[in-house]
């Protein structure tokens, strides 16, 4: 038994995975290890948050990406036989987890949204969404280690405990990869992080011109929220940046209020808003599937309704 291993790109994600990792390790009677390339000071913080061991990776050269750690993590796992490897489902994380699982010839539960340990059968039972979010698949892994990717924000960060002890172990430097990072470009300025927004106003195909997004922005301003969109708006029309696209393959949001304007409610999009507290929509097509996914829906033309809503909210 070599425990639960955690790999993520940043401290917030590591602390989230420590929350579930710590719980599982307690049930499984094992330890929690964190793989990180950050400095020793952070190691102390992760130990306070529930790690028993920190495996320190040598920081990356400027032209290398975290994939260089794949052979190293695989070798460590082969030597020490962990029970479970938890990876935060970021772009890089998903790629690395699949490749590590392939090298270890083991199963990977991608985008896991519930992770339980069945004490009777001593197995991990995992749930994930399938068919664009229409179905829930429950799986177990038949090989060791079970590998799992978990979307950032699925778990609350672990709460620190005073007086915890842990070890810090340095891993050897990874061999350089033939794949080179030539340049890094930061996100477009307009793209805010909608995954943490309290209110999200989302535009769909019912908005007929690019200029009309201004109407949605006005509503967003009144509601003190952020603007977002469905896939066709960012991908086909390029009216808004990709980062603002909500859906299974885009951002998953969990606002108090999601307000959809002219959103039809394709299952992939609905999956991206399933954790919203309240879903309110405006759509002129009474049969649009979004109404089944909504708490409150106005059947009407958004060009008529949105100005009225703004006036009512400003009262």
């Amino acid at each position, binding site marked *: 038994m070599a425990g639960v291993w955690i790999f993520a790109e940043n401290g917030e994600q590591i602390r989230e995975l420590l929350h579930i990792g710590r719980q599982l390790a307690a049930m499984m009677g094992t330890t929690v290890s964190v793989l990180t390339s950050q400095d020793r000071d952070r190691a102390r913080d992760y130990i306070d948050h529930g790690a028993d061991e920190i495996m320190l990776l040598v920081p990356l050269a400027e032209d290398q990406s975290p994939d260089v750690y794949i052979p190293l993590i695989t070798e460590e796992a082969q030597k020490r036989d962990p029970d479970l490897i938890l990876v935060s489902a970021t772009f890089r994380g998903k790629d690395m987890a699949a490749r590590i699982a392939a090298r270890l010839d083991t199963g990977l539960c991608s985008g896991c949204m519930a992770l339980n340990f069945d004490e009777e059968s001593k197995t991990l039972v995992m749930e994930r*969404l399938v068919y664009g979010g229409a179905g829930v698949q429950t799986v177990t892994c038949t090989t060791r280690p079970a590998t799992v990717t978990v979307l950032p924000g699925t778990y609350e960060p672990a709460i620190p405990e005073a007086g915890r002890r842990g070890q810090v172990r340095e891993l050897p430097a990874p061999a350089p990869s033939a794949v080179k990072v030539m340049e890094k470009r930061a996100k477009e300025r307009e793209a805010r992080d909608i995954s943490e927004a309290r209110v999200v106003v989302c535009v769909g195909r019912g908005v007929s011109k690019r200029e009309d997004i201004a109407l949605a922005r006005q509503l967003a301003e009144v509601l003190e929220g952020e603007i977002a969109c469905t896939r066709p708006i960012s991908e086909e029309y390029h009216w808004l940046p990709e980062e603002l696209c909500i859906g299974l393959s885009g951002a998953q949001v969990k606002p108090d209020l999601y307000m959809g304007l002219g959103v039809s409610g394709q299952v992939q999009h609905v999956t991206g808003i399933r954790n919203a507290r309240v879903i309110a929509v405006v759509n002129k097509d009474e049969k649009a599937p979004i109404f089944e996914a909504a708490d409150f829906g106005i059947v009407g033309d958004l060009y008529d309704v949105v100005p009225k809503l703004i006036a009512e909210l400003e009262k």
Partner: protein
Amino acid sequence: MPTIIACFKWVVDEAYIRKGPSGELDFSSVDYKIGEYDRNAIEEAVRLKEASGGSAIAATVGLPEATKGIKDALSRGTDQAYFIADPSFSNLESSQTAAILAEVIRSRIQSYDLIICGEGSSDLYAQQVGPRLAENLGIPCISFVRKIALEGKQVILERRVEEGIEIIAAPTPALVTVLPDINIPRIPGVRDTLTASKKPVVTIKKDELPPISEARLQTIKLTASRMERTCEKFGTDAAEIGRFVGSLRKKGVIR
């Protein structure tokens, strides 16, 4: 001139899945399609070969019925197809699909420059076949790419990461998984469909392959997902707008 392989999956069209009376998924009136994200992979392979004069190969693993998908992929501009089919291939898991594709590419196609996969299948969306296939073949893997340029023996890519975009250079052969915003897939015309039926298809059966290992993940349950929402509807006159805003206030979601 480059050889580009596009992998795809023939999947259930999720828009036709219904929720059964006891919370099960009802597949009785479903139709099938090439996975949404895989259409981008095929389109990109065809665009790259059109730009460079190479060839584009479509490859899929699935049920014999997926022959419709093969025709669709060829209509979308690929030059030939590899169809690995068996009646038992209905619920393959990512590790198995990747192993089968790797075996066929290694033994039958041999020489290629680039493999393109969609970012995930639109049914199970495990997002694993691409990266696992790259590992099985021992070639570089670059995932979530939104721009590809082949330049001699290397490929220059733009890939999405949390902080923005990274420009990557990798030696070929390499495997790339593409994001849906990389292109808008063409819609094949009548002519494309007609020429498609004349293109070569290599069909490979299960018994021509080495034994396939067991699934690494076991599905123990599949149910319809639940969304518990009140689905309350409102009209557009002043009183209804007032009632709508009132409902939001009552829930405490607006200030």
